[in-house]
Each structure stands twice: as C-alpha cells, then as structure tokens.
C-alpha cells in the first residue's frame, strides 16, 4: 500500500502529468490543422492513448498517453495528495481551495467529454421544428408512408449498426436490411465505364446513376463526412427486393413492398423534443457600409403542449435560450437570412466549472495575498 500512496501522492507524478499534458495539448493543437478540432479532440484528448497507425500494415500502436489517462492520473494524484499528504492549516487554505477547484474542473470536463451532445436545429422563418440533428452521427431511417394519410412512421437505425454492418430489422417491418458496404465518408460520382464493379451492385433508385467512392474521414469544422452505404432489402423468406445506394444528402428513396409505400435515407441522427420551436423572424444586422455582423438574432416561440407552456424568446449572440437542460444558441443562418441555425447543446456537467471557477479564484487570491503579506512582513523586519 505504502509505495502506491507514495507514488500517487508524489510531486513527481503531478509534474509529470502536467508536462505530458502540456505536450499532448500542444501536439493535439498542431494536428488540428490536419484533423480539424473535432478530429484532434477524438484522437488526442478524449482517449486513453494516442495511436499511430503503422502505414501499410494497418496496425495501431499506442505511443502517447491520451487525455483520459493523463487526466485520471492527475485526478488520482490530486485526491490522494489531499488525503494523505496535505497538511491542513489556515495558511494553506487557498492552496486547498485551488486543488479542490482543479478536481471539479477535471471531473466536469470528464463528464462533458462523455455526455455532452451537440446538435443543430434548423428552422425556416414561419416554420417550426421539434427536433435537432447531430453534427457528427448519422442514422438510417426507414419511413413507412402507409400508417395514415397524415402521419408517417419512422424507424431509425443507429450508426453503429451500419458501422458493424448488422442486419437491421424491426418487428413491425415486414423486411430486413443488410449492408453490403459502409463508407464513413465518401464522394458521390456519376456512374460510367470506369466505375468499380463493387459499386455496380446497386440496382435501385439513385444508385442506378451514381456511385459512392470512399474517402478518409474528416474532422474539420466546415467539412462534412458524407456517410454512404450500399444496402439490400430482403423479405422474410430471404428473397431479395433490391439493392440501394444511400448517402447523406440524398433525398429519401421511395420503394413499394407488399403494396405499401416506404422510403429510406441516411440522415443526421435526430433528437426529438416534447416541445416545438417556431421561428418568427431571423435578423442579421451588419455595421453600416460593411459586411461585419453586429448581431444575429432569432425571434422564436416555444410551445410545450404537455406543460401548456407557450412563450416568446429572442435568441441572439451571447444570449442563448436555456430550456429543459438544453442550451439553444445562435450559430448560423442560411437561405439569404431566412433560415436560422441554432446549436443545441446538452451538457449535464455544465455547472461544475462555475463551482471550480469560484474555488480557484478565491483560493488563488487568498494564497496570493497571504504570500504578499508575509513578503511585506519579511521586508519590514529586514529594514
């Protein structure tokens, strides 16, 4: 036990973690140029190890501790040091507060890294929406148009099923979907003589004219991963109905099965809410005579039928709407300033940084003042 405590409470561990963290953050930031912020975060920070893919033989070798490893060791170091080594006294009260603050900061970031969900809600002026779309994750949606004249029923299969090429089936669907190929990112090209034979198996819908060619995934802010899949629909007896090419950005592709109309599409993963947001007006003000934006704002009306709530709200820069544990903030616009794009963030750990900020601020200030007073005292003695 003792050597363990000695190891975990040591200054050596604390300083090593900080130096490793420094290097990790530095190289992770540099690599953002290649991977984009999201890509770099996944590769360096929200991981236990940073891996290197050996070119040619496709083996991944961990070569550096990732953000989780460093963070957890630092957390262990902080907690054990506070329990076993720290000598509690008023003179060190500031230091204590700072370290507790750092602990909550690390825990907060750990929680956000695992539970924060970012998505975008896109609303046209005069229209409403009750869902937002994930910026990264997609899903395969099968839409049953035969439920009633007014409503469709949507069956959404998560991205993991596409990634692992599992067959998609649902008890209420009379058919199952199998994947022939899954491409996390692709470009769509027109079919011609040079099209690889692998792509020619699609024999329905858009896949008759187009094909998808796989390209590496991107994590850059403005680039989109165009997820594509070639999928085949079978009926219960295993008979093939046809093979489709589905790709993010394609319109839903219709087909008929046993006299009922269906369509399928790959779309961004949707999060549905029990409330509606209606966009009354979007404004985009610029400084006179320039293109520099002064303000973007969305005048919205929020309706929550179950709670009987209905209220108006103006979302603008630095003034998001917080509702139901979600934050809606103005992130963009489209269609000649008639469509708003609201970023929707859910982060259960978002309150912790406030606590740690308070602790660290008070702690550092107290410690700084204690140091200053004792320094002044010593000077006085000397003179």
């Amino acid at each position, binding site marked *: 036990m003792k050597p363990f405590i000695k190891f975990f409470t040591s*200054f050596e561990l*604390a*300083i090593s973690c*900080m*130096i490793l*963290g*420094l290097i990790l*953050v*530095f190289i*992770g*930031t*540099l690599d*953002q*140029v290649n991977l*984009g*912020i999201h890509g*770099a975060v996944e590769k360096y*920070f929200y991981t236990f190890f940073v891996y290197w893919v050996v070119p040619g033989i496709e083996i991944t070798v961990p070569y550096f501790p990732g953000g989780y490893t460093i963070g957890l060791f630092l957390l262990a170091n902080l907690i054990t040091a506070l329990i076993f080594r720290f000598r509690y006294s008023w003179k060190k009260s500031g230091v204590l507060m700072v370290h507790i603050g750092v602990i909550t*900061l690390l825990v*907060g*970031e750990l929680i*956000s890294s695992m539970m*924060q969900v*970012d998505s975008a809600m896109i609303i046209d002026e005069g229209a409403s929406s009750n869902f937002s779309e994930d910026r990264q994750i997609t899903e395969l949606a099968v839409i049953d148009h035969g439920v009633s004249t007014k409503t469709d029923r949507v069956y959404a299969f998560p991205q993991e099923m596409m990634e692992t090429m599992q067959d998609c089936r649902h008890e209420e669907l009379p058919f199952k979907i199998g994947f022939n190929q899954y491409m996390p990112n692709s470009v769509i090209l027109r079919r011609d003589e040079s099209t690889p034979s692998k792509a020619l198996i699609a024999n329905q819908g858009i896949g008759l004219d187009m094909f998808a060619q796989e390209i590496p995934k991107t994590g*850059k*802010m403005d680039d989109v991963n165009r997820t594509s899949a070639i999928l085949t629909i079978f009926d219960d007896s295993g008979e093939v109905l046809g093979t489709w090419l589905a790709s993010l950005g394609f319109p839903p592709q219709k087909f008929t099965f046993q006299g009922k109309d269906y369509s399928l599409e790959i779309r961004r993963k949707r999060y549905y809410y029990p409330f509606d947001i209606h966009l009354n007006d979007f404004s985009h003000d610029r*400084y*006179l*005579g*320039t293109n*520099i*934006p*002064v*303000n*973007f704002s969305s005048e919205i009306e929020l309706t929550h039928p179950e709670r009987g709530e209905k209220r108006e709200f103006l979302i603008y*820069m*630095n*003034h*998001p709407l917080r509702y139901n544990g979600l*934050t*809606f*903030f103005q992130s963009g616009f489209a269609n000649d300033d008639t469509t708003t794009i609201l*970023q*929707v*963030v859910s*982060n259960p750990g*978002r309150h912790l*940084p*406030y606590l*740690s*900020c308070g602790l*660290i*601020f008070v702690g*550092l*200030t107290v*410690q*700084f003042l204690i*140091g*200053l007073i004792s*320094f002044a005292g010593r000077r006085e003695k000397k003179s």
Partner: protein
Amino acid sequence: MKKRLPAIIAISVLLLYFASNYRKQSPKTEIDYAAFGKTSIHLNGRIQPLDSVARNALLGIRYKRTFIGDDGKKTPAIVWLTELMMRPDLAHERPVFRIQDEDVQALLKLPKKPSSRSKVMIALLGQGSEHFYFSFNEIGPSLKVISEQAQKASELEDAQRSRFQKAVIQLARALSNYSALSQSLHHGQVASFRQELEDLENFAPAGVDAVNRRQLGEEYDENSFNQMMSIGFLYQGFEQSSKLLTLPSVDANEDINEWNKTSTLLRQVLQEGQASEIVHSYAKVVDAYRNENATAFNEGVRALHADLNAVDPSILPHAGVEQLFNFLEPFYIAAAGYVMAFLAVVLSWVRWPKILNQAAFGLICACAIIHTAGILFRIYIIGYAPVINLYSSAIFVGWGAVFLAIALEWLFKNSIGNATAAIIGFSTLLVAHHLSASGDTLEMLRAVLDNNFWLATHVIIITLGYSATFLAGFIGFIFILMSVFSNRVDKKTARTFGSMVYGIVCFATLFSFVGTILGGIWADQSWGRFWGWDPKENGALLIVVWNAIILHCKWAGFARTRGIMILAIFGNVVCSWSWFGTNMLGIGLHAYGFMDEAFTYLVGFMAVQVLVMAIGSFPTRFWKSQIG
C-alpha cells in the same frame, strides 16, 4: 529636489520630443489641412476623421503613415488624401505604392528603380530593407495583369498562396482602395463641382418631368431625357466606385440614422430640388482646392463643419479626439521613451548607477502614463474595453508588464524592474506597430465578441496573465545573461531575483488561470459549452499549466533559483506560442488571420529563448558570477 533631478531632466527631454512630434503633424501650409482632417465621415462601420482615413489608407499602400512631399520631406497623410480626392490627376504621379516583391515588380515591366535607401543603410539593414515606390500612373498600364493574377491567387486558400500571389493580392487591394478613395468626394468628370451642382439643380425639374412623361407614355423632351440618362449613368458609376460615407442624414427624431455616399446628392436634387448644405460645402472645398485658393478652402471647411454640427453636434468633437490621438502618437512616443530608458539602464551598469537609474525610472513612469493615455484614448474612441484585437492585445500586454515591473522596481530598487519594463514596453509596442500594418486597428467587433462585460473581464485578466508570464521570463533572461557573462550577481542578488520571479509567476498563475476559466464561462454563456479545445483556449491552458509546473517545481524543491529562471524563460516560449502561434494555425473561433511573416520572427524569438536556457544550463563553475 536634487534627488529627483535626473528623472526630471530625462522626462523633460521626452516631453520636448513629444512636443516636436506633435508640431510635425500639421503642415505649415496656407491650406488648413488639420482642420480638413478633422472632418467626420463614416467608414468601416464607425464615424472617424478624414485624418484617420488618410493614415490607414496610406499605411495599406505605402506601409507608412506619411509620404514624401514636394519639398522632399515627410508629409502627413491627410495632404496626400486631400490631393487624391480632389486632384487625382496630380496624386497619380506620386510614387506611393510600395512594392517589395521582385516578381510583382517584374509584372509592371518598368525599368529597375534606384533604391530609396543609401548603400550604407542597405548594408546595415539587409537587402530586404530596400524600398521601391511606384506611382499609380506607372502601375496603370499593368492594372489588367495585376487584377488577373490577383483573381487567380484569391481562388486559393491563404495558406496555399505563394509569396508572389500574396503580394499581388495585397497590391490589388491597395489599388482598389486607392481608386475608391480617389472617387469618394467627386467623380471628377467635370472641373467644377459647384458649377455641376448648380446646373444639376437647374436642370432637375425638366429632367424629372421628361422621365415621368416618358413613363406615362406622354410626349416628352427627348433631349432632357437623354441628358437625364447620362447623368444617371455617371452617378451610378460614382456610387459604385466611391467608398466613404460622407453625408449624414437625420430622421424625424433628429437622430442620425444613416450615412450616405456623396453620390446620393443626385437623389437629393431630384427629390427635393437641391442638394444638402453639406454637399454644397464639400463642393466649395473641392473647387477651392482645384483653384488653389487656400482662403476659400479654409472657409469651405469651416462651412462644412458648421453643417455637420447642425446635423449632430457630437460627431465633430468625437472625430476631433481621434485626430488628437493621431497627432499625439502616444504609443510611438512611449516606445521612444522605453528605448531611452533602456539605454539609461544599460549605461547605469557601467557608470553613475544611481543617477542613471533614477533617470530611467522617471522615464519609465512617464512612458507608462503616456501608454495609459493612449489606451484611454482608444477606449473613448471606440467605446469598447481596451483589448479588441491582436494589435490592442500587444499594447495591453506591454502595459500590464510595465506596471508590474514598475512595482518591482519600487520594491527592490535594483534596476531590474527598469530594464524589463523598458524591454517589454518597447518590444510589445514594436510588435503592435507591425500588427497595425493590416489597417484600421480601431475596428468594429464581430457579433460574437461584442460584449463589453466579457471583454473587460476575461480578456483583460488573461492578457495580464500574458504580461506577467513575459515579465517573469524576461527577468529570468536578464538573470542568466548577467550571471553567466558578468560578475555583477552575488548570492544575495540571486536570491532577490528568485523572489521577484517567484512573485511574478504566482501573479501570472492567478491571472492566467482565472482568465482562462472566465473564458470558459463566457463560452458556456454564449455557446453552451465550457471548453471546446479551440487553439486559443488550448494556448491559454498551456500558459496556466506551465506556470503551475514552475510553482510545483519550486515547492517540491526540484528547481532552485537557476532552475526557476530557466523554466521562467521557457514561459516566454509558451506564452508567445499561445499568443501568436495559435493565430497562425488559422482555425477555430478565435483565429483572426494568418500572419506568415510574423512566423519567422516568432520562431526567431523562441530560438533565442531556448539558446539562453541552454546557456543557463551550463554548470555554474563556468559562470562569471558565483550565485552559490
């Protein structure tokens, strides 16, 4: 009194320089350029004096805020702008376009120009310091080639452009800015602006009548109609090519609700039968200039100002403050003062330590006041907290470090505070000066940043964190050089150095940590996320972590005086990377522009720091000072 004498003398010298610099700002001509320069117009989203327009425009073209006048002397930019706006034919002869890139020079197909610098200066400053200036008329024949090349280059991403392509884009921008300014007050198609206005006002009823009749299908005067069409055509071109918004207009509540280009005078004449007073005054000024009538020019300017005052009495005084700020050049004067102070400190290490150090301290305090005044001017002019862009962050980092260093000097009186204040004060202002070449540094803030509360808390605090980190680093820098190469440092001095750096690192940790977290809270308030791993955020984190490493190394006993100094110097590397390096990555919400030339300097700066760290790592027995 006698004790203070060195400081008083030093400050007086600085103030004399201040006064003589101020006097150079208004040329001694019959034409009152200073008065005309105060005229308020609207550009880049804010009201500013023509004096600022002139300085920033010339900076973008000639890379200086002055030009060489007919007398061969440096002349304020407003003289050039006045000529460009009123007599473009003369201005086109002036060699004001600085073109450094040899390939761009080759595009112009002109005989090689003699360098503007003497051979001695070139030998001293290097080949790149040669400046080549061209006039608009010289560039004129190649305009098409330049715009084609610029068009091609602008299709690429900035990072992929070659040096030539960047230079050609820059030249194309300068040219377009230049020609827009040349047509901002008058289109120049007729000699007399006043005559044109009179003719226009006389003709308007007939012209409008002809157009209306034609629209209604009635009989109309074809001559008037055609004349109307050609005027419309002329003014359409005028509207498109001009850039300045010169005419404020007032709504029913007597608030200025809009600023318009001079070309809208046509609408005024057609709708109301006459142009506004302001247009008439501008016409008076333009005609007087063209007729070389200084008295009429000055009268016209007075009338123009009276008209602007009648619209809104607050706009001219505000522009006047900005003009005063331009005239005073507080940052330039402060930079000069810091150099003087540095020389005094260095001399004090050789002779008259007490006197020279007092002089240096006096100078630094005076510079700090001038520096502060400059920042206050900027706050007043633009109405934002002091740090709004990279330029102002450089000014503020220097300001913070200077005040911290003054506090150190006050406490320790050992000339180290003076030396670091002078070095950091001067170098940050020099950095700011180079950053200002991108144009108007008093820019309006993009919507995301437009929040004075967070600008005043997060940005200020984190910038002070940068200041303190640099200060600690420079003290370490001086310590290593002094103790390795001189015998001035003894055990006691080393300890003093140690406690100075320790105190400053504590301060730096406090400010950078709190500033970083406040940034996170701003992000959470605005974007619903606390931390996004954006390069600038990561840079701030690196500074916090590095300062924390220094403190822990000290507490754990891993590093003593020398070790702390070496670590503190590396703080300079971390801090400069976070400050500038992250901007060079050009991604994320915080990126405000790629600066490739700066990259070389940044790497050079870092290399020097690492070199001094290496020198400091030599065993102490090789050092000249014995620090024990």
